[in-house]
């Protein structure tokens, strides 16, 4: 007979992750509210570089994804994994290294992003030393998780654990491939992929950050905590298994739906669209499995705020996973892409699915590990309604403004001219929607504040059971097969096989999409007139990256008449072969800049100087921040040589030893621009050393945009 063993669950680590979830959740959402208000009141940028929209929007997204949801994942995993495995975490030391390491990464992100240290890849903005730290901490988490699974006392791996395993391995693969880069200095690097290839890697990564960071681990939490809260097993365990395999297999292919109608080859766009449509099936399988778990218990949903939070979370998951595939249909995407619709969509997921589930889990879990009762059910209900209303007041204005703006972009007069040729008109039209969205965000945050207060009161009324006593029979060392057993049970009992199975499944989609793009030259037809950036343009481009301009300005003209009419020739993949990073963007709060240096969009250098210094003096009503510091900061040219060297290593055809003379060319080009500005607008009063300032480099870069592919048509003019 097997002996019953006694052991203790580690609740202290769960508590730490729960506290971090609350803290970073509040911080991340407040930053979000601030950036939302900056769009309504541009003065809130305060002309502080570290507070401008471009720099702190990534801080908001990173804080919410990796700090709030990240800590929420670890809180839920550390609680549920121990109980599902009937074992304490493998190593307390690793648990703590994981916790403090992750917090350190968050603090590094919170310092570097506002200071402008960024790679600009969405959700992969952090610089290379932080990328390395993330890799190390993720490995620590993996060892701790697999160590726990291996020393478990429960034979079967419940489906939640499968989701945790798939999450771990896929995030590892995504993080490494997306962040393959060569440093040029302590905090700057260039990625090994460029242009269209980087775009595909980025959205393979970016979409699967949504899939495997915001979705699969939370599905694992749903499959554990929803049955717990409802006190009944999941509706269909069989469905959960099909759901799992189908979801991880299909999700990995869906990334290219972020690049529809761009220069990405058609075949990759089609793959992305088809697989995104297919995603409805497994996503809704999971959603229905969650909701149907409550069959026969709906009366309790009326009384139990925890179940209310979970029902809204799962419903929001269902809504956003219906909306996502619809937005992946090319003709529909032509409307939603670059517009606020996308912002509304992600917030239904982030606020609804992740936000509401996180608090549902915390309301359930914290009273238990503190051996007490929830301080106030009434306050939890208040939080629930503030949160739910907040989501509605957030999402609806975003859909409204998205549709409004897109309709304005594409409106033609009967004579075939754009009705709103000035992009700014399409922005000022939607400012009221931005204001209502900020109200929605504020409502949601006020709910979070009430929730945190309620949880603090709850925690202070109890005492942490840091080591919770549990007992379970030891697992027999040798499994005795009872007759003919099925392959899946073999996989289930062996987490490493499970890990490899998940890895193979997610790698298939990645390989088939990415490898042809990397290997096949035909995918990126070369354009003879496309040349590498000059040293000044290169430095200007890196400043454009530093300031996060890509957060509002795309550089990708889609092949629609309403876009070519507004911006000029549509973008081609061959234009981007020297672009590290690629800067196609995914949202147009300002106009596209791909043709900023040519045709009817071209402006004088002096226009750019005055516009960057104070956008509203040139374009009244503009909501762009003022970048006055660019006129004051000296351009750091000490980095030019290292940048040129790394880029040449990566295949950019700079002459050998060009790095030795690059700064001379840089100075010449800068002097030329300053001379032109002085001739055009002597009254701007440029300082004597104006050619040394950062703003000149950015102007050089902006004036370069679109030049390469028009150079032949406009010979003599460019």
């Amino acid at each position, binding site marked *: 007979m097997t002996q019953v063993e006694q052991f203790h669950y580690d609740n202290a680590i769960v508590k730490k992750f729960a506290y971090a979830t609350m803290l970073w959740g509040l911080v991340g959402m407040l930053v979000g509210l601030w950036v939302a208000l900056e769009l309504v009141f541009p003065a809130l940028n305060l002309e502080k570089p570290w507070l401008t929209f471009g720099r702190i929007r990534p801080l908001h997204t990173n804080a919410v994804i990796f700090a709030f949801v990240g800590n929420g994942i670890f809180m839920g995993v550390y609680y549920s994994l121990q109980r599902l495995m009937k074992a304490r975490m493998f190593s307390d030391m690793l648990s703590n290294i994981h916790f403090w390491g992750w917090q350190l990464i968050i603090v590094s992100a919170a310092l570097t992003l506002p200071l402008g240290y960024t790679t600009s890849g969405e959700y992969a903005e952090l610089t290379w030393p932080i990328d390395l730290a993330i890799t190390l901490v993720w490995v620590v988490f993996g060892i701790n998780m697999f160590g726990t699974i291996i020393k478990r006392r429960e034979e079967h791996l419940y489906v939640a654990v499968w989701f945790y395993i798939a999450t771990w391995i896929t995030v590892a693969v995504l993080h490494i491939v997306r962040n393959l880069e060569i440093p040029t200095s302590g905090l700057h690097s260039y990625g090994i992929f460029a242009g269209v290839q980087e775009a595909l890697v980025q959205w393979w990564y970016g979409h699967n950050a949504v899939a495997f960071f915001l979705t699969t681990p939370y599905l694992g939490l749903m499959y554990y905590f929803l049955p717990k809260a409802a006190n009944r097993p999941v509706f269909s365990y*069989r469905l959960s298994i099909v759901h799992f395999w189908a979801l991880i297999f299909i999700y990995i292919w869906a990334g290219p739906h972020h690049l529809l109608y761009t220069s990405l080859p*058609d075949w990759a766009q089609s793959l992305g669209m088809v697989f995104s449509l297919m995603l409805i099936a497994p996503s809704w399988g999971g959603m229905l499995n969650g909701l149907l778990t409550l069959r026969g218990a709906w009366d309790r949903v009326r009384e139990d705020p925890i179940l209310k939070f979970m029902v809204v979370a799962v419903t929001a998951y269902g809504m956003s996973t219906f909306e996502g595939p619809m937005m992946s249909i090319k003709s529909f995407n032509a409307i939603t892409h670059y517009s606020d619709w996308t912002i509304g969509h992600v917030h239904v997921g982030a606020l609804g699915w992740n936000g509401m589930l996180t608090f549902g889990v915390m309301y359930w879990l914290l009273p238990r590990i503190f051996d007490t009762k929830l301080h106030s059910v009434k306050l939890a209900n208040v939080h629930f309604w503030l949160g739910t209303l907040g989501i509605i007041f957030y999402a609806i204005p975003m859909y409204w403004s998205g549709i409004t703006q897109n309709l304005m972009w594409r409106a033609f007069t009967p004579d075939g001219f754009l009705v709103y040729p000035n992009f700014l008109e399409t922005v000022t039209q939607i400012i009221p929607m931005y204001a209502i969205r900020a109200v929605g965000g504020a409502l949601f945050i006020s709910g979070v504040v009430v929730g945190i207060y309620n949880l603090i009161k709850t925690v202070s009324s109890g005492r942490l059971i840091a080591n919770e006593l549990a007992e379970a029979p030891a697992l027999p060392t040798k499994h005795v097969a009872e007759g003919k057993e099925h392959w899946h049970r073999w996989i289930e009992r062996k987490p490493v096989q499970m890990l490899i199975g998940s890895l193979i499944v997610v790698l298939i989609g990645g390989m088939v999409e990415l490898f042809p793009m990397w290997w096949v030259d035909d995918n990126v037809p070369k354009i003879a007139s496309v040349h590498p950036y000059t040293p000044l343009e290169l430095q200007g481009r890196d400043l454009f990256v530093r300031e996060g301009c890509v957060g509002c300005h795309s550089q990708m003209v889609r092949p629609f008449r309403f876009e070519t009419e507004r911006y000029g020739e549509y973008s081609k993949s061959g234009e981007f072969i020297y672009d590290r990073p690629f800067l196609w963007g995914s949202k147009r709060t300002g106009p596209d800049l791909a043709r900023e240096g040519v045709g009817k969009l071209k402006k004088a250098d002096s226009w750019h100087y005055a516009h960057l210094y104070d956008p509203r003096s040139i374009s009244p009503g503009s909501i762009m921040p003022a970048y006055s510091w660019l006129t004051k900061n000296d351009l750091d040219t000490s980095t030019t040589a290292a940048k040129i060297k790394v880029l040449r290593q990566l295949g950019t055809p700079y002459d050998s030893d060009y790095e030795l003379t690059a700064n001379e060319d840089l100075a010449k080009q800068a002097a030329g621009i300053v001379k032109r500005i002085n001739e055009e607008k002597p009254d701007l009063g440029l300082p004597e050393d104006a050619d040394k300032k950062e703003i000149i480099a950015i102007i050089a870069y902006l004036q370069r945009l679109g030049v390469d592919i028009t150079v032949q048509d406009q010979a003599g003019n460019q």
Partner: protein
Amino acid sequence: MFKYILQSAGDINWMAMLALVLFFAIFLFSTVWVITRKKDYVDKVSRLPLDD
């Protein structure tokens, strides 16, 4: 277009075939497995979260 690109890259058709075959295999096996499971096994595993 996809076929052309894959062909022009040399012998990488096997990737598309592998993807297709594995795609069906995964669905087929997981569906067959869930249909053929005995009720007592499914009940037992699905109650794991409630038994800790």
